[in-house]
């Protein structure tokens, strides 16, 4: 158990996931309101305010472009926040993980449970945005529903990356480095707010080494009524980020906690 480098994948992550769901249910109302409120604000403020200046991108109204980008960035932010601040609180401040380790659960189950929960929250937030976007007429057809499983995969990948940061962190301040050095650049370079072809080629190539752009390139077509291309390649990059980060974070957390 200790010696294997690979995480042990087991359905035992479900009780951990369910624990977080039960806690979430207690603050469900403000949480769901937040899920809906934030994208509405973003879309209205940015979309109307900015959209007037920008006009259309090709034959795409800026609002439509933006909605399909924000659904991706919001998944990234939601999963990252949950995987860092919330998971760290449960691990370090509340000692919730210590309690879980007294039950017949392995650390691997806990890490996977936390990551799956963060992915679930990303899915909830993306679903809310999808509903808002649909109500505002920014979604073309039912194809948009296919965005949701992609979001779940993206949430998994971003949460797993966040869990690496959590494993290395000694305080909440540490998370700011990750946001400043990884999340924010990724947000700006992945075609969320403006099309990538505005940027120099080198930057575009570099951006494709990061996961967010691949998420956007699958989800944007689905939201505007087109079929994405290179789906398998894009999803493989995202999945690879998730699996490598899951393994690394599990290994780091074992070293940190089971010592």
């Amino acid at each position: 158990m200790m010696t294997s480098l690979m995480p042990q994948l087991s359905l035992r992550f479900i009780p951990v996931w369910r624990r977080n769901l039960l806690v979430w249910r207690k603050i469900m109302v403000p949480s769901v309101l937040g899920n809906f409120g934030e994208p509405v604000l973003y879309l209205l403020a940015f979309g109307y305010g900015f959209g007037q200046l920008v006009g259309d991108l090709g034959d795409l109204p800026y609002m439509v472009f933006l909605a399909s980008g924000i659904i991706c960035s919001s998944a990234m932010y939601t999963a990252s926040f949950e995987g860092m601040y919330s998971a760290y609180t449960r691990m370090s401040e509340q000692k919730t993980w210590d309690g879980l380790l007294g039950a017949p659960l392995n650390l691997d189950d806990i890490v996977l449970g936390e990551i799956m929960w963060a992915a679930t929250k990303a899915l909830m937030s993306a679903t809310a945005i999808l509903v808002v976007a649909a109500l505002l007429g920014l979604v073309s057809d039912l194809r948009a529903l296919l965005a949701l499983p992609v979001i779940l995969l993206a949430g998994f990948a971003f949460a797993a990356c966040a869990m690496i940061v959590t494993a290395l962190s000694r305080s909440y301040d540490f998370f700011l480095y990750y946001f400043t050095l990884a999340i924010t650049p990724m947000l700006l370079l992945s075609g969320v707010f403006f099309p990538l072809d505005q940027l120099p080629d080198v930057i575009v190539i570099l951006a494709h080494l990061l996961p967010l752009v691949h998420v956007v390139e699958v989800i944007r077509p689905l939201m505007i009524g087109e079929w994405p291309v290179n789906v398998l390649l894009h999803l493989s990059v995202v999945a690879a980020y998730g699996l490598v980060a899951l393994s690394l974070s599990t290994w780091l957390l074992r070293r940190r906690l089971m010592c």
Partner: protein
Amino acid sequence: MDTVALTDDFTTAQTADGPHIARACRLLKRYDGQTVVDHIDLEVRPGECFGLLGPNGAGKTTTLRMMLGLTPPDGGTLHVLGEPIPARAREARVRLGIVPQFDNLDPDFTVRENLTTYAGYFGLKGDARRRRVDELIAFANLGQRENMGIDSLSGGMKRRLTLARALINRPELVVLDEPTTGLDPQARHHIWQCLRGLKQQGTTLILTTHYMEEAERLCDRLAIMDRGRIVAQDSPNALIAEHIDPHVLEINGNAAMRWLDGQTDDLPARAHRVGDMALLYCREAAPVLERLERAGLRYLHRPANLEDVFMKLTGHELRD
């Protein structure tokens, strides 16, 4: 969740010297090059209450964490409930209960929810789970508080809830790390009563404590640890009989110390001096008493106890 068939031969492993619930052989743990648990041998028998005593930093918690599979040993072998540890620690934890040194109740839940979710981790569901939680709320005497948050509980209530949580799966073995530290006498007595009840049902207990009277009252056998080593392992009475004379005379103050300095080596007692007080250990009290009376000194005469053994074996200087 896994369900494990419980049969007796699965629970207790037979060895040459009888059945055991837990056994460590030459168990070793190092932190940063420092040996914290130093090749210890331990054996816990079915149905007994086994105590682990030792000054701060002796390695008690580390030993327990290794037994629970929460810390990998650096050497030696370890079996708990017949399972090799850490290889099958999770399987062992299905059948044991843990009261950690520092409470880790879930602050996001109420008293009842803490027990209910914990039962869920063990695979309990539906009616069976509700009945078990009801029983344990009554056991912990927390009926009045079952819907309150953890923050509203006193230290004693938290400890009781932690103990109740450890019993959710009707464990064969309960491991308790300082279960009564920081509790008032009433709360401590309540925990003792709970532990005696568990023992009567045949549950094996392993506990650490800094309270010698607690160890003397509860433990059938105990090990005294110091700097990672086990310096003695036996029943409380046998330890007292083996390591210390039966009578203890306590004296203190300047006059008493001057008197003690004046005694030549014919005093039929072993004197142990700590600052301005001294403990005189002797086989026969009368000759020493007579001298104390003659000198007009105040003294306290009491039977030797586990604390005397503990101090003798681990020394009187402060540890941290």
